[in-house]
């Protein structure tokens, strides 16, 4: 590769990384849907999808084909450009944030870190920022469909996401204070010392922050028990009532992609990212291939567990009411998050 300049190598490898990560994320999205349906089914005393392929494993494929072949309806009174734009915003914002997630240990090929699309020093802020832009997708979809249920759903979603954004952001401040950096790799490294016991969740004393993050994240992704925007018993389907075919599928994928993003962030910030939960107890792998793959395995395992938690919660709890949701966010989560910041900074200051 001597005839390529460094920049060209960087470019080629980056495009390769993006392609691979995108494919993997989209597949993961499809299979998260299957995971949810299977797991929810088992929790609810039924089978879940089991007809398409072995154990229903081809169900996502069948769903995808079905959605592609569906008629794409366009309501007459809708605001056409925005109606089309909304799902694109929702899905692309959900996918972009994966770009800053480091999902493996630092492994360099030709000077390029292979397990991180871009290692930015404000990675956490980028994720928060991009997820906020995703709200536009929801807000615009509700308004442009010219449907009252969709409008109510999108209003609920917008106010909910904006309110919980605050608690979410504040819950992460403690972690950032401990790591002294917004760079996701630094945050992971700050928890890598003694495996499980140096995770922010356990050893780092950020357990309160973790639960605030958990609740805010459920609200942020509009999932049970905060699934008011698409509360099917109240608002039919919420903001995507008027959407059909692939446009609907994009919202659907965006929801699950957001779940994965949130699970990734939780893994990075509270569960030690790609580091091993056993710390130095396990011998350091000698083979470079195992050394590269093992961290990815830990990362995927943690994300998977977090997703299972999501699904478990959905099977267990009822739905909040709109006003209760707001007062919970503003009157409980936000003050607790602020107290957590104060406590964390006091501890850090006293420790010197």
């Amino acid at each position, binding site marked *: 590769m001597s005839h390529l300049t460094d920049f060209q190598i960087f470019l080629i490898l980056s495009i390769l990384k993006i392609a691979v990560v995108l494919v993997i994320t989209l597949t993961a999205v499809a299979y998260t849907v299957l995971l949810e349906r299977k797991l929810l089914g088992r929790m609810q005393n039924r089978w879940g999808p089991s007809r398409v392929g072995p154990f229903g494993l081809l169900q996502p494929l069948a769903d995808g084909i079905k959605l592609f072949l569906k008629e794409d309806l366009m309501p*007459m009174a809708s605001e056409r450009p925005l109606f089309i734009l909304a799902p694109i915003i929702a899905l692309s914002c959900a996918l972009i944030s994966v770009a800053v997630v480091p999902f493996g240990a630092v492994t360099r090929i030709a000077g390029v870190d292979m397990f991180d699309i871009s290692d930015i020093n404000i990675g956490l802020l980028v994720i928060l920022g991009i997820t906020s832009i995703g709200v536009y997708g929801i807000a615009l979809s509700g308004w442009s469909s010219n449907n009252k249920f969709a409008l*109510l759903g999108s209003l609920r979603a917008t106010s909910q996401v904006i309110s919980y954004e605050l608690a979410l952001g504040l819950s992460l401040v403690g972690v950032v204070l401990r790591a002294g950096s917004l760079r996701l790799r630094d945050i992971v490294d700050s928890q890598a010392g003694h495996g499980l016991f140096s995770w922010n969740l356990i050893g780092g004393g950020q357990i309160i922050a973790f639960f605030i993050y958990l609740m805010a994240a459920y609200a942020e992704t509009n999932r049970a028990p905060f*699934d008011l925007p698409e*509360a*099917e*018993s109240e608002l039919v389907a919420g903001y995507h009532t008027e959407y059909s075919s692939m446009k609907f599928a994009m919202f659907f994928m965006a929801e699950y992609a957001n779940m994965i993003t949130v699970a990734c962030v939780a893994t990075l910030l509270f569960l030690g990212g790609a580091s091993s939960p056993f710390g130095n107890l396990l011998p350091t792998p000698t083979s470079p291939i195992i050394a590269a793959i093992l961290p990815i395995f830990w990362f995927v395992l943690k994300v998977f567990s977090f997703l299972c938690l999501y699904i478990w919660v959905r*099977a267990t*709890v009822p739905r909040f*009411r709109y006003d*209760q949701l707001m007062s919970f966010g503003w009157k409980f989560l936000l003050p607790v998050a602020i107290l957590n910041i104060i406590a964390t900074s006091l501890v850090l200051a006293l420790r010197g």
Partner: protein
Amino acid sequence: MAPIAAPDQINPGIEDVLADAERHHHGSDPIADQTMVINMGPQHPSTHGVLRLVLEIDGETVVSMAPDIGYLHTGIEKTCEAKFYQQVVPLTDRIDYLSPMTNNTAYALAVEKLLDLEIPEKAQWLRVLFNELMRLNSHLVWLGTHAMDIGALTVFLYCFREREQLLRIFEAVSGQRMMTSYIRIGGVSMEPPLGLFDDIRAFLLDFPSKIDEYESLLQNNPIWINRLKDVGHISREDAIALGVTGPVLRAAGVDFDLRRDMPYSSYEKFQFKVPVSTDSDVWARYILRMEEMRESVKICLQALDGMPEGRIVADAPKIILPDREQMKTQMESLIHHFKIVTEGFAVPAGEATSSVEAAHGMMNYYVVSDGTSKPYRVHMRNADYANLQALETMCKGRLLADVVAVIGSLDIVLGAIDR
């Protein structure tokens, strides 16, 4: 940017809705008042069938509402007039389709009053047994759908797991899972199969632990409590004035249960408590119905323990279809069978009502006879219709999400409302 389309272009039917809203909402103009009129139903997922609610909402707050019924109108009352008395029984199954045997009982009681029939004790006890199992069946569907409306999906499937066992029992005794037509004029249709009572007993002994399971998912959950407490309040006076009955009335502090106050079908021989509450909110109705399920289990067990021996139909050969065996061996029975099937039986002219405590509340059947073999008029009064009237009182000024909770707590079946 294209101009925003005028309302009539968006929805061709909007004038009707607005006119509706204006008529029901004391002349307020939704557009000028910055409120929004939304149509909840008839295809809305949480209106339990085909109820349409025209809601005028200000943001999320309900300003006024008008239930619009009739989407499930089946004309059963009118159809009854063209049927023989015994042919009406399967029609009554379809009124309140969650407790068909209760409907059968109410109809049979009214006709038996006209005929002045003496019902054997065993038939009466069987009626009590299956009426109470029907109450369990209906309450299980209520709990499941109510919880699902509030977002607890799993409870729904757990409830249907138990309901499935009940439906098997109904199938074993009548041959049908839902439209049982088991309780007939003069008694019940068939002797329960051997071993069924043991199955029922096994189910009943197991069932209280299942109720505990539902409660463990709901009762201590702060979200569930917050969604239910202080929602959908109705005063004792309003409840009485609106003709509300059943658990909704008892939750409003009125101790009224027909099983105890006007016993029918030998309910006076059973010991049971009538749970009453004074909170009159959705939570009270939830607690009350859970208690009722436990009481129903007790009644069923008493019925099983003390089940008398004897005939299951009244001794009235001109009214009750004869035994198959007799029909094939005795000429007189064959003649009776032929006459009943081809021309029915004449019922003395007059009118009679019956009142039964169904799972949803008071169920009345009013039967008028002109002396022929077909009823002149059959009118059903189901609690659902009156209970639905209380919806506006309960929901006014509350949030949209509360409407869903209140509809769930009223436990309406549209089949019983539209008839």
